[in-house]
């Protein structure tokens, strides 16, 4: 029996398509002289009904009363009293609702799956540290202490310590810092990170779900799941509704001894509008959001977003563009094209985020650099065309005893504005200074104004940058709270704190370092050009990193939730009306079925209204 069920659930869509066709043909044949309504309806009821009856029976075998049971009894009952049209329609609606729900859920699944796939499924295990080729093992069978060979371009499969070799590792999947890191013997490496260059032999210390990466995945899986509870409300309702209708029908049947009447109750009591009402709202809401550049991964995301009262933003890449730009320049009197060329020459070989901004902001032809040395946390010392060139911060120039007096007034204003400063000194003399900042995203200020208009007054910004820079950005858009100097782990802690105080939190972020916080927040909203993992763990994605879409996302969430409530209300009112009418003797099965179908039409049309939200 299990096999037959699996077959049906695999081909449910084909099944629903076939039923739809049969029902349409049946209705069309009414218009012709060649009427074959009943046989076609019977066919539709059988192909749709058998899987439902099977599912109901198997659930009952494990003492579980499912919603399928009510539908199954109603179908069988309707067939007994010869109401094949009703049986077919009820079965069709029930299956259609199932398929609609599955379609919306598929997106959620794909997201988690692609995250899981970032973790390697196999590892090359060496028998001896000096071997160059090992045995490929399933990751679940790799033991603690095993020596694993990692080749350039591979993802590291375990957490462990380097025992042999050197390499350059990109730890972006864990830290969000896409900077390559040099790894040598006795240094630790983490599963899920990429060995960009080199060859490593790693002794495994943690494997599979115990690795840092594995724990992140587990966290995400469980976090995502705890959210889908909202979706279960309707099924929980059905849990009580189902036995109630069954008992009612049984009582009525026993008291009146009228089988047709009892079965009418069952047929009318089938939660048709109820079953289809919620998926219709969801599909319409999610569809409309998608058309406007907002990807919501499932109905739970939208209903959770509706309950949010606190919006938390990551700064870089979310509120700001995430790409520093030169916003102001100062050049010493007599500074020439040559100074600009020297600056550009050094920045061309520098591997620093600010260097890119300088290259974009200053146009000059780079010259070959003869010698260069990086001074960590300060800048670069180089030799170009016989000149000693310093490019870096005030600390670097201080070390070389170069006076910054000439530029002091200008830089003070820049510092107050929260800009980062880059100095250029040639042969021991200050020649120029640049102000660099990560500018606000286009429309950021208008977006925050709109958010306040919509009634969101808890606007919090978190940043790994220093407090001054963060506050500067926060003031510009009107944040209510700004927290700077944070480590990735701190962000998740802050979300927890807010939740402990009873807030429902949405987090907007773009980096992998935001992933735990994204997963932890009731709603994680990722910026669409962010890293893959951040997209995977989020509930909602704003495409093209478009922050201005946030107010619309909130509006759609509100309207979709309201729409669902309306549809549930319509469905329940219909059921109440039908039962009232039935008991009072006004409603017989044909009129009842018509009202029933009208209510379904109404909830569908109501759901369609969501397609107009903008």
């Amino acid at each position, binding site marked *: *029996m*299990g*096999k037959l*069920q*699996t077959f*049906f*659930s*695999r081909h449910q869509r084909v099944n629903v398509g076939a039923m739809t066709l049969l029902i349409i043909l049946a209705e069309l044949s009414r218009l012709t002289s060649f009427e074959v309504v009943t046989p076609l309806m019977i066919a539709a009821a059988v192909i749709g009904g058998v899987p439902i009856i*099977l*599912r109901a029976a*198997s*659930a009952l*075998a*494990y*003492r*579980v009363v*499912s*919603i399928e049971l009510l539908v199954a009894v109603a179908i069988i009952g309707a067939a007994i009293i010869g109401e094949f049209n009703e049986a077919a329609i009820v079965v069709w609606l029930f299956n259609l609702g*199932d398929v609609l*729900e*599955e379609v919306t*859920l598929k997106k*959620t*699944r794909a997201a*988690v799956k692609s995250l*899981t796939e970032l973790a390697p499924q196999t590892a090359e295990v060496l028998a001896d540290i000096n071997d160059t080729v090992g045995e490929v093992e399933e990751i*679940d069978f790799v033991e603690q202490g095993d020596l694993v060979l990692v080749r350039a371009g591979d993802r590291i499969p375990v957490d462990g310590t380097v025992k042999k070799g050197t390499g350059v590792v990109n730890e972006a999947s864990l830290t969000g810092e896409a900077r390559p890191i040099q790894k040598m013997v006795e240094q630790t490496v983490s599963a899920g990170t990429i060995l960009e260059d080199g060859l490593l032999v790693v002794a495994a210390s943690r494997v599979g779900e115990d690795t840092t990466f594995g724990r992140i995945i587990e966290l995400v*899986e*469980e976090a*995502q*799941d705890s959210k*889908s509870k909202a*979706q*279960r409300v309707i*099924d929980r309702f*059905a*849990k009580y509704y189902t036995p109630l209708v069954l008992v009612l029908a049984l009582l009525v049947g026993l008291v009146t001894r009228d089988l047709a009447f009892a079965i009418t109750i069952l047929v009318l009591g089938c939660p048709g509008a109820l079953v289809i009402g919620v998926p219709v709202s969801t599909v319409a809401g999610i569809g409309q959001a998608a058309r406007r550049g907002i990807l919501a991964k*499932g109905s739970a995301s939208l209903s959770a977003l509706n309950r949010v009262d606190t919006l938390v933003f990551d700064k870089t890449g979310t509120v700001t563009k995430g790409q520093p730009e030169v916003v102001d320049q100062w050049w010493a009197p007599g500074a020439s094209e040559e100074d600009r060329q020297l600056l550009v020459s050094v920045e061309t070989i520098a591997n620093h985020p600010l260097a890119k901004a300088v290259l974009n902001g200053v146009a000059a032809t780079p010259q070959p650099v003869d010698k260069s040395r990086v001074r960590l946390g300060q800048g670069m010392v180089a030799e170009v065309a016989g000149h000693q060139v310093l490019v870096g911060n005030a600390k670097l120039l201080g070390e070389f005893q170069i006076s910054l007096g000439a530029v002091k007034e200008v830089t003070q204003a820049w510092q107050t504005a929260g800009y980062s400063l880059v100095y250029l000194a040639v042969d021991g003399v200050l020649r120029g200074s640049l102000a660099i900042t990560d500018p606000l995203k286009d429309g950021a200020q208008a977006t925050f104004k709109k958010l306040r208009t919509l009634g969101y007054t808890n606007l919090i910004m978190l940043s790994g940058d220093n407090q001054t820079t963060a506050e500067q950005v926060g003031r510009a858009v009107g944040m209510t709270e700004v927290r700077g100097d944070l480590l990735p782990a701190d962000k998740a802690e802050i979300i927890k704190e807010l939740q402990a105080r009873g807030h429902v939190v949405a987090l907007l972020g773009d980096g992998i370092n935001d992933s735990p916080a994204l997963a932890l927040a009731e709603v994680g909203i990722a910026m669409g050009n962010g890293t893959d993992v951040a997209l995977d763990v989020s509930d909602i994605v704003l495409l093209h990193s478009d922050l201005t879409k946030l107010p619309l996302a909130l509006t759609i969430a509100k309207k979709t939730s309201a729409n669902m409530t309306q549809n549930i209300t319509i469905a329940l009112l219909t059921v109440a009306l039908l039962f009232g009418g039935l008991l009072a003797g006004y409603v017989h099965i044909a009129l009842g079925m018509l009202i029933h179908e009208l209510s379904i039409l109404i909830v569908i049309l109501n759901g369609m209204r969501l397609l107009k939200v903008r």
Partner: protein
Amino acid sequence: MKKIMMELGGLSCPSCLEKIKTAVEHQAGVSEVKVLFNAGKLKATLDTNQVTAPVLKQVIENLGYQVKNVKEKEVTQ
């Protein structure tokens, strides 16, 4: 005692989750049943004297759902 993790297929409605959870919980020797809806996974702890993973697999398949993959791990107490 054993910890098991099963990857499930065809978990499309939240009521399926309830059904599977209830059915598995009713088996003797099974505790800490967790069905991860979005991930499509079932996690549980088994008392190997009373029940085995293949038995649970059969229970889930009888309900009409696929079990794609089973992982087991010994836990010492």
